[in-house]
């Protein structure tokens, strides 16, 4: 099989040595990167620092008061729009103590289901699960032809420090304008602590490029279509919705689809209620939809083309309270008759 002459063996030995050397150096680098990743946790991208802090808190903290929990415990799942748009403290003060809420928005996470399961597995007991994005129509099941649903999660497992290089470059690029590397590192650390203190709310300052964190009034983005409605698609069947329904039943919570938000120039005004979604959820007693698919705000309330600034978050939280307060009219968190 393998060339047995002297030259062949020499070449074989050299090649094996060369490949072993490559692997050995790669292992050393792996350890080096892992060490940086774990020892310098605030070298990461601002939003990743927040995700890590939240995940840590989900695993070891108390999302809701463990001694005297409020009758209505709201866990709001979603991506960075939730993170930067929902202020739990404000929401709870508007409810005058009837709610205790937590912002579980995680940047880049459209699939909230694993996070919901993580929260429930950690022993947190929400009574209301708020969502701005619907669940997918279907989920991946392994087969002989397709073994994995996606490679990215597996790569992240094998190389947990995968974002390190990109984050470090971004960190070093921003550090001079933030008072230097050390000051910026401390700033990131404080951001994480503040997010936990703010019950998961975080203003994504790193993406805000305009003065006063306000998007200019004349700002347009190529993907804007103010003449088009951007309806939310809500699958009424499929494995994911069944999984959520099962969890809702087991853990006694209700799933509430609440309005998302858009810039006024981004999409046209939606109908006050999405009738299609309403029909899709008609036979689901633990599912609700409140308000329109999204609320439109002027550019001045955005810090970048996607996320709200603190004024915008204030407004959105108040609007959310307006459309959801009827859910908390009694004190038990149970559905109104």
């Amino acid at each position, binding site marked *: 099989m393998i060339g047995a002459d002297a030259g062949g063996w020499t070449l074989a030995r050299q090649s*094996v040595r060369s490949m072993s050397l490559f692997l050995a150096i790669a292992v050393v680098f792996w350890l080096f990167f892992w060490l940086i990743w774990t020892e310098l946790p605030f070298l990461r991208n601002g939003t990743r620092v927040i995700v890590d802090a939240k995940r840590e808190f989900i695993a070891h903290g108390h999302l809701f008061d463990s001694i005297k929990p409020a009758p209505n415990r709201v866990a709001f799942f979603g991506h960075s729009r939730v993170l930067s748009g929902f202020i739990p403290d404000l929401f709870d003060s508007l409810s005058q103590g009837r709610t205790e809420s937590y912002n579980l928005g995680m940047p880049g996470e459209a699939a909230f289901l694993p996070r919901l399961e993580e929260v429930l597995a950690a022993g947190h007991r929400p009574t209301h699960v708020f969502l701005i994005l619907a669940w997918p129509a279907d989920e991946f099941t392994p087969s002989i032809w397709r*073994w994995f649903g996606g*490679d990215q999660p597996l*790569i992240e497992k094998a190389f947990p420090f995968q974002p390190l290089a*990109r984050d470090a470059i971004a960190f070093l690029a921003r550090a001079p304008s933030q008072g230097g590397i050390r000051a910026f590192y401390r700033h990131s650390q404080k951001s994480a602590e503040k997010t936990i203190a703010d019950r998961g709310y975080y203003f994504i300052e790193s993406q805000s490029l305009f003065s006063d964190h306000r998007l200019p009034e004349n700002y347009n983005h190529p993907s804007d279509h103010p003449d088009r409605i951007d309806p939310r698609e809500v699958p009424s069947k499929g494995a994911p919705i069944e999984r959520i329904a099962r969890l809702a039943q087991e853990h006694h919570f209700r799933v509430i689809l609440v309005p998302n938000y858009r810039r006024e120039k981004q999409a046209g005004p939606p109908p006050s209620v999405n009738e299609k979604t309403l029909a899709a959820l008609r036979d689901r007693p633990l599912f609700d939809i409140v308000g329109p698919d999204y609320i439109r705000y002027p550019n001045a309330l955005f810090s970048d083309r996607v996320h709200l600034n603190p004024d915008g978050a204030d407004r959105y939280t108040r609007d959310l309270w307006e459309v959801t307060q009827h859910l908390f009219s009694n004190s038990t968190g149970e559905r109104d008759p």
Partner: protein
Amino acid sequence: MLFNSLQFVIFFPILWAIYLAVPFPRRYLVLLIGSLYFYAAYRPIHVLLLMVTLVVDYLAGRALERWREPRAGWLIAATSLTVNLGILFTFKYLGFAIDSLNAFLSWTHGSPPFSSVHLDLPVGISFYTFQSLSYVLDARRGQVAIERNPLMYFTYVSFFPQLVAGPIERAGHLLPQFRRPRQLDFSAVRSSMQIILWGLFKKVVLADNARVVVETVYANPEQFTGIGLATATLFFAFQIYGDFSGYTDIAIGIARLLGFELMANFRQPYLARSIPEFWQRWHISLTTWFRDYIYIPLGGNRKGDLLWARNVIIVFLLSGLWHGANWTFIAWGALHASYFLIGRAVDTGRVFLERRFSSLRIILRWRFLEWASTMGLVLIGWVFFRATSIDQAVDITRRLLQPGPVGELFQLGLSRIDFALATLWILIVMLVDRQLDRPVPWVTRQWQRRVVRHVCYQFLFWTIIFFGVFESVKFIYFTF
């Protein structure tokens, strides 16, 4: 199954180990089973379609061996062509043909008479159909030995490294390699690893990051000025190059690990200094296929300028159509045909000017000017290749040089850092291509040093890990 997927990372070592463990005479069967599984992983039902092509062309080969009269040979080849091109037409072009007919009849009669048909396109159908057809055509000309073992023939066409996106191999080159006993060649293993690493870099780092800019701009081109449009077109040029040549590199590396040498498909195309040179460097296996089976049989350049021009136009229109069922691809082919024809006239004029005014020679033969004008023409061609309609392509081309704010560069879907990195990947690929094309002795000497090589390997590996896109983005040419 994609080369850039973890499933393949697990699949291939298993297959390789079995392949090496099985005694030589049976090894091709391991490859056949592996190849059919590899193809079935895309869509199992499409294996049946592949099998039809394999069986028909195998039988055509055997029939050509048995009936050697020219008329019989012609009939057999015509049957094979009809079946193969019939399948290709049905799955790839029928919907386009009906839509085009409907559009024409709506224009003349007011309403479209036929309902649209859109079948699921089998991955790589154009590649394996052309490869299988070349065997029948070569067999008819007596240029290739007839393969009597059906399973061996099936293995040759379905050989998984090149099944879905080429290189489009020839039986005379690849088929005998299945019969040749081979030992595990460690120098080949080492060079395979290098080329696979480089191919992966081009695919998951260069192409898949450039893709973000291309998709952002080409989804709404009307929203961008010339800055955004030109940048996206340049990024598309490197996306498609990184994607396709990256695939080819991986295919060549995988085949080499199994002991096979596939033909080269790219030779640093963006260093070409003329359009004919570009076509000697881009998708070489397809270009030579059209040359051998269309251009030369039509007379090539042997029958005067007029027929030469006709042949060039036919070849490029067919090449455009081969890429996809859309008028934009046909326009792309037509554009390259016009480059060829106009280029020849320009060359004649240039030679004339050089003779009359020798002092102009330095400008007329200025390498940079030749390269830049070739790149410009290729980029305009890519606009038509990437656009979704002729109208969109014309609009983009018209506005490519329209001035706009530089800040638009950072509204193309990538952050400033990612945009800078994407530009860096393009530069790296161009520098490596430059070195491969015209080696700088100092760099070649450095490459001989083990330390330098290992630094490069580690750099590529970690760049792939840190900046690669692992969402299993399909290769662009799979859809052709």
